């Protein structure tokens, strides 16, 4: 069925009195990379575990490749958890062999840059190489769906670009990919984004959709340290970006007043807000509620 690869329909999950996931609906279609964003405790992991069929839903339904996420369907899925799921005391070859046999497929060939690591224990290898191996293991059986939990966490720039190359290549071949990430710049790599907060799906779509109505003001000044301290003390949601200080959801006039009172000369300018700022505002709202 060239339809939806992963689907969640009004999925809710409760643990006792705590609602981890609240009425979430989403889909992943072939050829697209969907980014799942959200702070810790937003419900991302619980949602993914339900979609993988690892835990049951309290209400609603999940679908994987047109049916319930059973073992047969899972064999057509590739999953790279945050912990990579590799055995540190086995070599690269041995890990790939184990994984390939588990999925009933042939052991994948090692790409050029990994051949020299073939006999090394995975636990001894640098993080970036470990991720590459984990990816290889997950892709060996040509899965139609990929679920990746923080695929590039802690990885350097070059390796990160290379990993996204791999992900894109899979999407181009028709696979559907669901990836969670904490690195907002990666959000640009995705076709579609989903933002979760407190178990609910708060925003969906492009980066602009996620940012929503959040605004930001950039404050440029020579005395950044003082300006930062002053605005922070005034309770404004400040952030540093490059040389400028950014304040989310703020009224430029109010900021100007505060800065003037402290004797700081600065130029203020409204700028497009970032996803981080949206998340910052969500976190603040949650704190005060």
């Amino acid at each position, binding site marked *: 069925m060239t339809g939806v690869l992963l689907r969640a329909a009004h999925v809710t999950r409760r643990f006792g009195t705590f609602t981890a996931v609240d009425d979430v609906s989403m889909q992943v279609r072939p050829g697209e990379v969907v980014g799942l964003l959200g702070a810790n405790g937003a419900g991302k992991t619980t949602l993914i575990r339900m979609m993988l069929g690892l835990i049951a839903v309290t209400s609603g339904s999940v679908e994987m490749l047109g049916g319930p996420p059973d073992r047969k369907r899972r064999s057509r899925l590739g999953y790279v958890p945050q912990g990579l799921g590799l055995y*540190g*005391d086995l070599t690269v070859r041995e890990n790939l*062999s*184990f994984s390939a046999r588990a999925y009933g497929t042939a052991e994948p060939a090692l790409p050029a840059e990994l051949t020299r690591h073939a006999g090394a*224990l995975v636990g001894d290898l640098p*993080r970036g190489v470990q991720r590459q191996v984990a990816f290889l293991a997950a892709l060996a059986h040509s899965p139609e769906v990929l679920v990746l939990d923080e695929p590039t966490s802690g990885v350097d720039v070059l390796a990160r670009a290379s990993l996204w190359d791999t992900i894109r290549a899979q999407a181009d071949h028709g696979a559907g990919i669901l990836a969670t990430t904490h690195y907002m710049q990666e959000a640009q790599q995705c076709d579609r984004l989903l933002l979760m907060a407190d178990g609910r799906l708060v925003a969906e779509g492009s980066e602009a959709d996620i940012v929503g109505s959040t605004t930001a003001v950039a404050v440029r000044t020579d005395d950044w340290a003082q300006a930062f301290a002053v605005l922070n003390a005034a309770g404004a949601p400040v952030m540093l970006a490059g040389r400028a200080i950014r304040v989310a959801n703020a009224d430029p006039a109010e900021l100007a007043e505060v800065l003037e009172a402290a004797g700081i000369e600065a130029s203020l300018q409204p700028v497009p807000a970032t996803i981080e700022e949206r998340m910052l505002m969500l976190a603040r709202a949650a704190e005060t509620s």
Partner: protein
Amino acid sequence: MILKEFRELVRDRRTLGLLVMMPLLLLVIFGYAANFYVSSVRAAVVGPQASQVAAMLPSFFDVTVTEPSGTQADAEMLLQDNKVDVAFVTGETPVLALVNGSNLFAAQSTVAALNKAGSQVKTQVLYNPDLKTSWVMVPAIIGLILTFIGTIVTSIGLVREREAGTLEQLAVMPIKPSRVILGKIAPYFLVASLDMLIVTVLGIALFGVPFNGNPFAFVLGAGIFLFVVLGLGVAISTISQTSGQAIQTAIFFLVPQVLLSGMVFPLYAMAAGVRWIGYLFPLTYFIMISQGIMLRGAPITSLWLPFVVLTVMAVVVFTGATLRFRRDLAPGGPGSPAGQQPSAAETVSTA
């Protein structure tokens, strides 16, 4: 799945060692050391007819002391110092045979042999008149408990820091390594001491085990012994990366001690080729002290050997372990933490 597990097992040298070495060790021990049957006992003969009686004794009695001018008091002294297993006091009929009840199997064999002599000999068992196993075991168990707490629990406690990754932080803070060790060991020292107290009191209360000797000497001996085993715990922690490994290594040290320290099988009944191993263990010497003091009321002077050996062990083990630990904490040590995200491959040179 099977293949993977095998591959992982081969790499896990400690588990492999345990699986292969332990059965071999047990086989050797049970084969050569396990022996409840005592072939001969050390005997002393005192009193006016000493030489005659000594000559008449069957070969089972290995007469090491013949003292015609000796009295019963002298005989008892020999027994208290654990120099002999049985002392014959001649001069009256029937001959009085004083048996050292603190060496259980020797005593049992001796009594059996003496019974054959019938009314010619009057047998009296000292220190453990009913030849109760519990009386001999409880002093040994005290040592076992101390060994257990000292070695296993201490090694886990220190390895926990390494596993959690917090060892690195301690290394950087202005805190001396010796203080770190002391701070980590102190709670276990207290717990072990408390445990020892409880077991001793219970042993006396429940089984009627006597406490005939000097409690201060006992406490001193236990204290020194504790230092040895705690030092071993620190040593094990310096060579273990995870608590799993620490436990495995500790077991490796613990099991042979249980079997070869004289707690279960008497030392002198073991084949000489295996017996010497028993003398390497600290538990062996503690048992000498605890049985000596509790059952025989022996003075420190007669127990000088185990005391000295334990003290030397304590100094050597503790110093060595502390130095190794300090190397872990100080610059140049292999302080790479087993954190959640393994960092870049850095083959660490041994300083």
